């Protein structure tokens, strides 16, 4: 148990450092096991410094910086054993346009390198423009959902009707 956990920590930490630099266009980040000396009881602390800022705990970053850092951590774990399917439900909500762009770059790179199919639920126009195909969900009949395949222009309209 302990040996495997320590190995997994090393692997995830290595992936995390790289993914963070990639998502933030610089800066640095690292994980550390805190509290108990026994890894099976320890906690996972996350430290990060966006470019030009001092290294600090995840809690001190802004809302968008915390979300992007957490995405980097999730994909650091994912890359250890890539699944055939990845589903992301509005993870881009707190991000500004620059970070949405970087996030989209990351998910298309991951999908191409691992062959994983990625499904992403989003309200962001930029994300909609970057995916390979789009489906709209409508409730034309109140309370009853229908799935339709849409193009970008139709998707834009769908954002606007309730």
């Amino acid at each position: 148990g302990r040996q495997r956990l320590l190995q997994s920590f090393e692997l995830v930490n290595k992936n995390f450092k790289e993914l963070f630099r990639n998502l933030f266009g610089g800066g640095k980040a690292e994980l550390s096991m805190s509290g108990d000396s026994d890894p099976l009881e320890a906690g996972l602390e996350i430290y990060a410094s966006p470019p030009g800022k001092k290294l600090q705990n995840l809690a001190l970053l802004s809302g968008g910086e915390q979300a992007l850092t957490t995405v980097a951590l999730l994909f650091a774990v994912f890359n250890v054993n890539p699944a055939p399917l990845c589903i992301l439900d509005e993870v881009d909500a707190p991000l500004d346009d620059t970070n949405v762009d970087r996030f989209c770059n990351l998910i298309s790179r991951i999908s191409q390198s691992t062959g994983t199919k990625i499904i992403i639920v989003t309200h962001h126009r930029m994300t909609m423009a970057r995916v390979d195909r789009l489906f709209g969900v409508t409730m034309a009949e109140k309370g009853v959902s229908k799935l339709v395949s849409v193009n970008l222009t139709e998707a834009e309209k769908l954002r606007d009707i309730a």
Partner: protein
Amino acid sequence: AKVDKLRLAGFKSFTDQTDLDIGPGVTGIVGPNGCGKSNLVDAFKWVMGESSAKQMRGDEMDEIIFGGTTNRPARNLAEVSLVLDNNSRSVNDMFNDTNELEITRRIERGKGSVYNVNGREVRAKDIQLLFADLGSGAKSTALVSQGKIGSLINSKPTERRHLLEEAA
């Protein structure tokens, strides 16, 4: 193995049969608030063996069955299927003898749910294991439900340890 298609009927707000073909690369899902996007995500978790009603955003598991609207009656049956392409023969031994796997979970109000693979009845544990071996499944980090990023940010360091356990 690749995941090719999701089919659902009577599941939450998708009362009529709905098919989602999952092509390669990245598929976007859009639509107004409350239209049913996260219900689709729940359908993936459910067919992969989710056993907690709370994870399905309800108190009882029967609440995932279509509850009716002002115009349509409630239903008593819900069914979700996931079609896997297994040409690479990369699933665990129990299911590795065919090129295509159709995994179906069906629930009847008051009677619990039943799992089938290519028409053969199997246990929930078999399905959960099938997806865990693929690095996937209802509890996998590859399935990020709405609000999960926020709860991870606010979680205590010891609660985040499960991320490492998953990668181990």
